[in-house]
């Protein structure tokens, strides 16, 4: 058995531990270690992608303990997609941070690596309690990263974020406990089988657990009543941290996509599960609220935070449709929106650095030194973000609209989705005209944009164009992903076969 599937967890763990132990290493060396580790994760994710091949699944039993007793890692198409996306995003964020954002507090790179470890672990694991543990790993790292740089605003937002997530963790264990009490197993494939065979008397408990899971993942994914921590936390976080956090809401969405179709919908359609029926109205309300928030935001970072909510709402509404086409379109939108929100967090920082006291607040200030280049970049960025052609936002929105038409849900989704898009466009053009067209008469700032930072933002926005050029091959992959999510029997089969082959080997 090859050990490749466990490396995306081990490499950041080792790199992070090294950086903690050797904390007095010169900063450039820490940066080299951190960037090298992140780069290797990208390579690993692609290698895993080619390893899973046509079958679409791979089972790695840790310590050769047979499932369901041992913990298994099950990389499949969805895991590989998320691993690749995380590695790409982290690479941009860590390069951006290495321009001196990492000097603002201790242990930035170590925490960054631990965060990656938690993310990768959550994407790979096939065990429910292990998913909880990796959630904790990534959350604990994110608490400290959110506070990176210090200051009262961060302490205040951090306190809310930590307390809310601790309550979320408590709920997570309760739900896991209920499922264990009912079925006596924690392996997701085994859970799926036992839940599909559960006696009717146990069904209320199982459904209660599934709704608790919806709440827990909803806290992470910013589902409507549970999202009010998000705008403040994302607004005050340091720019590269906020960029990395763009993937954090997607972890919640990933967990929904992993747990609900597999564990609760083995013998029924996904849309018939109780949690999925709740998801649809809540996601639409999230989308509407995000649109209003974007219009009311007072700074560019704040606006981007609300765009994270818009994208979370769009994504969950699309997934709630439940068809293969809809899930594939949603996954495409996930890739697009993660990269674009992250790019905008970094871009807002780039603008804020040139406006002195005014920062990224939407007030008239003296002219920026690089207002022409930044203005052109803002124009293209806004077009990419709001979903105008030829960028990937346009492609993904077309697919989402098409799939909702096929599901007969266009009556409720179209007006809200397009309305939120319009609000986003209005807010972005208002921000752009305030930043670049209206300037106070004072002497312009003399600070030039840092070349590397500028380059990172440019490349991130270019990925949007690359996504729309490569849309068809990517979409084929995502359709295969969605199809395998909807046929969880195959996943269960692969894990059970591993049990058999491991027993024979002993």
């Amino acid at each position: 058995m090859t050990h490749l599937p466990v490396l995306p967890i081990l490499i950041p763990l080792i790199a992070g531990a090294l950086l903690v132990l050797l904390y007095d290493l010169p900063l450039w060396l820490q940066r080299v270690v951190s960037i090298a580790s992140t780069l290797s994760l990208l390579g690993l994710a692609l290698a895993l992608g080619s390893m899973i091949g046509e079958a679409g699944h791979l089972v790695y039993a840790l310590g050769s303990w047979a499932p369901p007793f041992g913990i298994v890692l099950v990389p499949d198409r969805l895991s590989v997609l998320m691993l690749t996306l995380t590695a790409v995003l982290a690479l941009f964020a860590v390069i951006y941070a290495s321009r001196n954002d990492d000097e603002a507090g201790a242990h930035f790179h170590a925490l960054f690596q631990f965060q990656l470890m938690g993310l990768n672990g959550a994407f790979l694991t096939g065990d429910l309690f292990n998913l909880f543990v990796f959630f904790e790993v990534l959350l604990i790292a994110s608490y400290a990263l959110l506070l990176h740089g210090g200051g009262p605003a961060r302490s205040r937002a951090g306190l809310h974020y930590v307390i809310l997530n601790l309550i979320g963790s408590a709920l997570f264990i309760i739900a896991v406990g209920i499922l264990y009490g009912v079925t006596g197993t924690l392996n997701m494939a085994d859970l799926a089988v036992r839940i599909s065979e559960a006696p009717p008397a146990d069904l209320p408990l199982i459904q209660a657990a599934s709704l608790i899971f919806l709440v827990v993942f909803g806290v992470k994914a910013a589902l409507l009543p549970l999202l009010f921590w998000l705008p403040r936390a994302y607004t005050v976080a340091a720019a590269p941290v906020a960029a990395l956090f763009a993937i954090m809401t997607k972890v919640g969405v990933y967990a929904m996509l992993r747990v609900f179709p597999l564990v609760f919908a083995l013998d029924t359609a996904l849309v018939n599960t109780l949690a999925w029926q709740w998801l649809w109205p809540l996601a639409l309300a999230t989308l509407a609220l995000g649109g209003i928030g974007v219009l009311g935001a007072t700074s560019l970072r704040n606006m981007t935070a609300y765009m994270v909510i818009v994208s979370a709402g769009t994504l969950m509404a699309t997934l709630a449709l439940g068809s293969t086409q809809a899930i594939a379109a949603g996954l495409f939108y996930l890739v697009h929106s993660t990269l674009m929100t992250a790019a905008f967090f970094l871009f807002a920082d780039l603008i804020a650095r040139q406006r002195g006291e005014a920062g990224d607040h939407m007030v008239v200030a003296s002219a920026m030194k690089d207002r022409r280049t930044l203005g052109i970049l803002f124009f293209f960025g806004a077009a990419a973000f709001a979903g105008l052609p030829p960028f990937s936002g346009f492609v993904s929105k077309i697919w989402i609209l098409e799939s909702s038409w096929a599901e007969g849900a266009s009556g409720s989704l179209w007006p809200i989705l397009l309305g939120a898009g319009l609000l986003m466009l209005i807010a972005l053009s208002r921000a752009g005209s305030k930043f670049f067209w209206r300037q106070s008469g004072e002497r312009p700032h003399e600070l030039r944009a840092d070349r590397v930072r500028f380059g990172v933002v440019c490349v991130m926005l270019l990925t949007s164009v690359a996504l729309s050029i490569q849309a068809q091959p990517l979409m084929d992959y995502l359709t295969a992903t969605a199809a395998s999510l909807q046929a969880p029997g195959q996943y269960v089969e692969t894990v059970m076969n591993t049990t058999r082959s491991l027993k024979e080997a002993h």
Partner: protein
Amino acid sequence: MEALYAATVGVLTACGIYLVLRGRTFPVIMGLTLLSHAVNLFLFATGRLALRAPAVIGQSETYTDPLPQALVLTAIVIGFAMTAFVVVLALKAAVELRNDHVDGVDPDEDWRP
């Protein structure tokens, strides 16, 4: 025994939720602690309550499920570390914001540094 155990978990959870909804950070942290106690007890009970049945095979006629005990251990470790972290964070916030309200604003006092 089940009824007593269930009532204990229920009372702990109710007290925890009440305290978590308070406005100052210290009661909130106490609430989180009670909540995590309740969760640990709940998790322990998922292996079913049994008397004179250790979680080791061969020590007695029956044995209990050892897995919930391992899960509780993990949950205790994580919960303990997080309580320590949130206490320090609350202290830091109290010093920086000059009050101990969760929103960072004291509704009774209009005092600013």
